[in-house]
């Protein structure tokens, strides 16, 4: 991978600290002169002029003129991409996860959370959001991770802005079908799969019965959130996000999808590469952490960092899980790791942009640098997947985000050690 020389990286880190709490909105901005990748890792445009107005990208051209009134961000010698997306986090749902107060992504005693949406719990002021977005990750899938059974409710896609942050709520239904879930649900996978199938069969029967009754409204009462959710899943409006790792369980999942004719996203997916062809044939995308390669339990014996490349080669659409929510930004390093283990660079870039946009149902507004898309644009000082690269500018839905966070403020405070740094504001 060719590396470009960083020119203005240092200057950019001290930029616009005063504007931390007041990002500019709907400004007309032109990003000029960069090497842009407009469609994931492809669609390369040299000397790109990207025009942003009203929060949207209005045009992407090579060498295009900048209209009057546009503020120019000079990206000469730099790389320009769509903002990246972390595909499995609890961003905005948790701050300090251990002994630090409430963790809204976890409801360990609650059961049957089929209709529960995370959106009301989402907090765009979480410090992790600023820490993440200044590293070029502008979107995230966020969801609950823990309940008293297999049902983890309805997750969302968020953009990492200070307001108007939920890009798509109730975007998918999360079901944990892994070892830990089976332990909660009857203590056996036999019980887990039985209950899953029973739940779906009952919901399908209910839908069929309602359809048979046609326009008979005598009996019409407000449907429960669970009914609405199950109907959305069974009619294909939203997918199931299924957490499964073991090969045998993934085969069960494929059969489950076929049985009910639903859309499924496979997450975790430790041994998914072993059935890559079946997943490709079933049209099931895979969301995984490419850095994970240890047999951490008996569901993960065949796990390897080569999985992302193997799944991609088989025609499976792949997106990446970061190593933890506070480090959601490291989803970019994870993409680099996938490349080092055999995934083509452009495919790894797709897995950070266009793939999650399609998988989570936001591709009409996010994922590419193209007219009409939300202006999530990042200017990088080098190959974005390199661990020594970082953004010089980050736009989210047209807002030029100051590269400032609680972490950068601590950094600046302790640049020089003195007796009482707290006075240095």
């Amino acid at each position, binding site marked *: 991978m060719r590396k470009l020389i960083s020119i203005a990286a240092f200057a950019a880190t001290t930029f616009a600290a005063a504007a931390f709490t007041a990002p500019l909105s709907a400004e007309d901005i032109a990003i000029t002169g960069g090497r842009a990748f407009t469609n994931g890792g492809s669609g390369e445009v040299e000397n790109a002029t990207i025009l942003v107005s009203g929060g949207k990208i209005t045009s992407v051209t090579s060498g295009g003129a900048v209209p009057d009134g546009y503020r120019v961000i000079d990206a000469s010698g730099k790389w320009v991409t769509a903002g990246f997306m972390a595909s499995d986090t609890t961003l905005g749902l948790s701050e300090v996860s251990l*002994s630090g107060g409430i963790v809204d992504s976890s409801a360990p005693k609650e059961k049957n959370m089929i209709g529960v949406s995370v959106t009301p719990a989402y907090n765009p002021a979480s410090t992790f959001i600023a820490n993440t977005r200044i590293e070029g990750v502008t979107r995230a899938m966020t969801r609950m991770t823990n309940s008293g059974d297999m049902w983890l409710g309805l997750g969302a896609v968020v953009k990492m802005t200070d307001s108007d942050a939920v890009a798509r709520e109730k975007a998918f239904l999360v079901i944990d079908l892994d070892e830990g879930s089976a332990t909660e649900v009857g203590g056996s996978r036999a019980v887990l799969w039985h209950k899953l199938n029973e739940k779906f069969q009952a919901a399908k029967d209910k839908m069929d019965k309602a359809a048979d009754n046609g326009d008979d409204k005598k009996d019409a009462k407000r449907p429960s959130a669970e009914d609405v959710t199950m109907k959305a899943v069974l009619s294909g409006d939203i997918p199931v996000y299924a957490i499964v790792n073991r090969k045998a369980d993934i085969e069960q999942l494929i059969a489950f999808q076929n049985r009910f004719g639903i859309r499924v996203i496979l997450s975790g997916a430790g041994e998914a590469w072993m059935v890559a062809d079946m997943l490709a044939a079933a049209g099931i995308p895979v969301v995984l952490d490419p850095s*994970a*390669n240890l*047999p951490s339990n008996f569901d993960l014996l065949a796990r390897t960092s080569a999985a992302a490349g193997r799944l991609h080669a088989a025609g499976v659409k792949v997106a990446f899980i970061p190593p*933890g929510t506070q*480090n959601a930004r490291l989803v970019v390093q994870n993409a680099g790791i996938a490349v080092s283990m055999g995934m083509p660079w452009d495919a790894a870039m797709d897995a950070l942009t266009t793939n999650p946009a399609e998988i989570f149902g936001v591709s009409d507004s996010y994922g590419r640098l193209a007219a009409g898309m939300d202006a999530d644009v990042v200017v990088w000082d080098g190959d974005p997947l390199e661990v*020594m690269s970082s953004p010089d500018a980050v736009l989210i839905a047209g807002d030029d985000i100051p590269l400032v966070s609680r972490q950068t403020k601590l*950094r600046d405070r302790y640049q020089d*050690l003195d007796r009482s740094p707290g006075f240095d504001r």
Partner: protein
Amino acid sequence: MNKRKVFAPHTRGRTESWLKTAATTVAAVALLAACTPGDGEQGEYVEIDRDPFPSSYTPLPSGATLITGATILDGMGGMIEGGSILMEGGKVVAVGTDVSAPDGATVIDAAGRWVTPGIIDVHSHLGVYPSPGVQAHSDGNEVGDPVTADAWAEHALWPQDPGFIRAAAGGITSLQLLPGSANLVGGRSVTIKNVPGRVAQDMKFPGAPYGMKMACGENPKRVYGGGNNSPEYRPSTRMGNVAGYRQAWADAQDYQRRWDKYERDYKAGKDVLPPSRDLNLDTLAGVLRGDIRVHMHCYRADDMGQMLDVMKEFNYQIASFQHAVESYKIADKLAEDNVCSAMWADWYGFKMEAYDGIRENIPFVHKAGACAIVHSDSSSGIQRLNQEAAKALADGRKAGVDISKADAWTWLSLNPARSLGVADKTGSLEPGKDADVVLWSGDPFSVYSKADLTFVDGAVIFDRANPDNNPVMDFELGQPGEGDVK
């Protein structure tokens, strides 16, 4: 308050009889003073065997190997373009631009590739919290008492942890295996060479001093304060933590005085019995004697500040603060007191004491002239410590700290070796040192570079081009994924 209960493990009923047995079977060695003045017969002089589980490590067979045409980071801040390194007899023989191969040497053309000292991870739980991480393998925290200096990581070390091989693929040649951080004093660590063995002793780094794990802050007070793991309900605060360390040191001082007095009396010709053996205090006293190095899990600057004073009060040296997320706030004090900081590049925020982590921690500690180390505490992170150093280096440069790649490599090998007390044997590419060497496919500060060859004592322990030659742990035999590229 019953301090004795808290700090003296020999009072615990379950282990008492075993400890008594151990005390009576202490190796009796070194009959001193053949002629003693005056008063008749003396019993056998009892001296505690300081090395009852000796290393049985032997280097794997190796021939002479010459790597030529590489970019070499010598681990001491030097960089050689078009450099060569000759390894023979398990040692580094020569490093430079004009090195010739002896007859029969394997010559590797490394044009475009990089050579570095092997990475040393000072914080790993491989073997004691191995994969698979099932309950049966949870061997890292002896939580029954806040001070368990009598627990030794090597006694739980499962040599079949697949994590060792993954770490070798990441260029790890030596590592310190530690007990967990539940306790105030978790027990002894062990430093190993990353070479598969049948028993733990086959992996032990010959001549490496022992370490002892301690922990500040949230973990001990959480583990014991609820009463679940100790009927004492203490420590439940940071006050209780510090009281616990200090009482443990005071007990160790007392114990050492009793042994010193026994030695004096015996040498004076008296017929004296040795003090009762206490395995907990054996290790703590070993620290006070300077034989055992303290590696202390400590996140917050103020926690570290307290420990620097405890260290002075009881006259021992803390070799390193581990995790040290806030070292950047007191890097000058750490430099002054000669304490290393073993740090992540960017892990933070998962608990309150990790909330103030910044990405420039490592370069800021380096800038202050203190000893900076990149560590993992993770079976995943240990596979890519070169990338962790790269991130820290980049973040430091962006914050105006000008550090070369050659200097940054000291975070990965020489500084760790110093903190473990093995810098005379490994950690840099100097003639006479162990040939613990990595040949990288390219610049190791790139995410795309990987270890092509990892050498320990001159022998290849990982060869990316020949996966069939790489070790497969017993656990993975006959399982899905056996021998796969990982």
